[in-house]
């Protein structure tokens, strides 16, 4: 466990432009899933992903639309990498902007659960 704390007057360098920034946005929640250096106990150099791409995009849209019915949010961005993903690099990045943090967190966690259940993307191999 490492902990870094900074409290000060400097502007916070934001990670990257949020999907939607308007004056109503109060919360940006982001998730990045990274390739870890081991799979089933063996040391690996990375993961290889494949997708049924048009269906994956449609399923992601369906999941987000469904989750947003319960918890209105202002914007969602989903990026998933395919092919070789070296250890330490991101396989998925999801950003949610909302008025308040509760709906952003709920959507982010709920989305990841359903992605891992219904979106036709596969880790097919390691290298």
């Amino acid at each position, binding site marked *: 466990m490492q902990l870094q704390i900074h409290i000060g007057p400097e502007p916070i360098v934001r990670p990257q432009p949020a999907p939607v920034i308007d004056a109503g946005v109060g919360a940006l929640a982001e998730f990045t899933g990274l390739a870890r250096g081991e799979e089933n106990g063996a040391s690996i150099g990375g993961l290889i992903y494949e997708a049924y791409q048009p269906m994956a995009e449609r399923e992601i849209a369906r999941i987000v639309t469904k989750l947003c019915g319960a918890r209105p949010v202002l914007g969602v961005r989903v990026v998933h990498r395919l092919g070789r993903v070296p250890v330490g690099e991101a396989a998925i990045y999801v950003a949610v902007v909302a008025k308040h943090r509760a709906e952003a967190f709920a959507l982010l966690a709920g989305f990841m659960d359903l992605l891992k259940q219904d979106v036709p993307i596969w880790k*097919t191999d390691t290298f």
Partner: protein
Amino acid sequence: MTVLYFAQTRRLAGLASETLALSSPVNAEALWNEILARHPALAPLRSVTRLARNGEFTTVDTVFAPGDEIALIPPVSGG
């Protein structure tokens, strides 16, 4: 009908896609029988593999027509 194989189903079938010449619509049972006749190695995955028709998950009532794009969706592991 085009059939797409992904992930473990692609590896076990040994190909990514193929064309099935159906003369009439079939249900999931008949489609699986045709697929397994061509690729017996897929039998162990049948119970965990979902069928998609034209990019959407199917239900038990789905009818598969000759012009459809079918995909075998083994358990996903994205993210």
